[in-house]
């Protein structure tokens, strides 16, 4: 059921205090909402952090999530991001098995996806790839047959576009 629900990116400004992240994550686990990814970091105002969260939910659930988040005292502002009005990015570090016969192909793929090679060894490359979720899925699909040793993803961060 859950995988059929569409993804929603939720962005919120919260008090930069201990325990706030646990209020947010506890709300999701306690009410049976799901979290695909979650990013937290300070904003320009050190008292305020931005949380970007990706969830899968139907329309009624996402409405309830937004209301429940708004109810938390430490949450200053919550918005659900419509995709066309926001820019979204995710970064991944991908460690790929690099046998001699694959090295050129890995570099070609890296070039196509404008990745950086940030570490290289006799048996591996580490690629830094940035893009939206589809781009990441695409490159991972290409690298998978070659052999992905390990991966670290940031989860989505997003900002509303400013009026043009």
């Amino acid at each position, binding site marked *: 059921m859950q995988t059929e629900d569409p993804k929603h990116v939720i962005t919120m400004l919260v*008090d930069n205090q201990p*325990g706030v992240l*646990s*209020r947010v994550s*506890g*709300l999701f686990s*306690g009410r049976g909402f799901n979290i695909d990814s979650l990013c937290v970091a300070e904003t320009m105002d050190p008292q305020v952090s931005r949380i970007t969260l990706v969830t899968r939910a139907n329309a*009624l659930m996402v*409405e*309830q999530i937004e*209301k*429940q988040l*708004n*109810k938390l*005292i*430490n*949450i*200053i*502002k919550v918005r659900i991001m419509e995709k066309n009005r926001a820019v979204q990015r995710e970064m991944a570090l991908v460690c790929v098995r690099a046998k001699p016969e694959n090295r050129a192909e890995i570099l070609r793929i890296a070039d196509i996806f404008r990745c950086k090679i940030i570490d290289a060894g006799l048996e591996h490359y580490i690629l830094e790839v940035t893009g939206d979720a589809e781009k990441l899925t695409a490159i991972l699909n290409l690298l998978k047959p070659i052999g992905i040793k390990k991966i670290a993803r940031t989860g989505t961060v997003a900002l509303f576009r400013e009026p043009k």
Partner: protein
Amino acid sequence: MSPKVNETAEKQMTGAQILMAVLKEEGVDTIFGFPGGAVIDIYDELARTDIRHILVRHEQAAVHAADGYARASRKVGVCLVTSGPGATNTVTGIASAFMDSIPLVVITGQVPTHLIGNDAFQEVDIVGITRPCTKHNYLVKSIGDLARILREAFMIARSGRPGPVLVDIPKDLTQVQTVFSLQETVHLKSYNPTYRPNKRQLEKVVQLIQDARRPLIFAGGGVILSRASGELTELAHTCIMPVTNSLMGLGSFPGTDPLCLGMIGMHGTYTSNMATSACDLLLAVGVRFDDRVTGKTDAFASQAKIVHIDIDPTSIRKNVLVTVPLVGDCRITLKHLNELIRQGKPVDDLPEKRAEWLDQIAAWRQKGALNYDQTHIIKPQYVVEKLYELTRGQAIITTEVGQNQMWAAQYYRFDRPDHFMTSGGLGCMGYGLPAAIGAQMACPQKTVVDIAGDGSIQMNSQELATAVQYGLPVKIVILNNRYLGMVRQWQELFYDKRYACTDMAHAPDFVKLAEAYGAVGLRATTPAEVIPVLEAGLSSPNVAIMDFWIDREECVYPMVPAGAPITEMLLV
């Protein structure tokens, strides 16, 4: 600014003294608690003030008592307990107050700041534990934050949809000094409840009320919390709309009013449930459509347009889809509705328009009135009915949870708000006695009766000592069937009478138990003894237990099986 408050301005004070000063500022004169190592400095300071402290015998009871006190006094209830087990024991009480939206400030001691995280003696992360069952909670990290946090706690507890707020204070902060200064108002940029309803939505509601042929008001605890009974009654009378109540809403509309249909839901009246299914407009005020109310949601009020008034936006469209959502304070919203209706042109044929609907309701009333046969064994319904008559419907009734709670809700008719106190959302056995103690503290002149079962009274019966110690003459009516009756009822109806672990035949002698605590103990085993025992118990100046040996296998009817449409009622 009163001169008294001015005296405390700009003074060096310890954390314990600051706590007392803020309690004074907030108008707190009574707190419920239990001392311990982490709060010993607070207690030392408390003893120098004129704040009354009620020493309970278990911290859970401190919270329930503060809950009962808050409901009866319409103030914020305050508890004070120590760290570790003192704090964990409050969790059930806090969760119950959270579900029922009762304003509380719970102050817990914590181990000294430098020991936090060290698994110190009596250390527990109570802020972590209570995060999901408080409206908000705090761990005070610096003495400079203490006064602000305490003021915020009171503001959050009583505003918007009320609820419990916990403040965890490390022991060292109660001892160190800082400058205490007056802060005018508390402001939280991220907390701003909506009290005023949207005008356009209100106009839609007026139209819906005037167009409706079969309207029904469904009033809940929010009406009581926002003190909207007067406004609700006016609306019901001017627009000739019958009223059904949730358990939490009993008393928000006079139970003896001809338009009152009684409780809705799993053990609601036949009339209420039938009317809910047949109405074409359901005006839901201060309710949250609990599953015990709706039964199968698809079938709930399926012919009706639903208007939902609530101060908490999360209550709206959570369980039931609505036609017109109205976020706002129940009282302000109903007041606006009444004004709009008064200003608008009157519907002149209103009585004729409603006649058919009222006839239908009268027919349901006749067919499905609450009833029981008083045989040679005492029936619990008879006890509650006689209690209602002997107290002339004026008593404050608290309940435990289970059959006792439902019989109290069905057979005691509440004409006023704040006279029925029950753990509605959490369904917490052990609530009734401490809540009665709290209510009696708030209303010394009132008769306060805990309607209990023999099972649930044992969950906090130690509080008899508290009641006797402080001369709080609460009355306890035990509907004693020597079973955990409600579970047994489910086992009888849905589990082929396999009574797994519900036989409570081994119970204390409640008369002797009462006497052991210095209270009065009375027992009735035959119907003829019911009235004399009630009379003796109610007229006693002391705490009294009245132990009624009722029909062991009496069930609460009507009953809607869990998850069924509410029209599918078992009637006998």
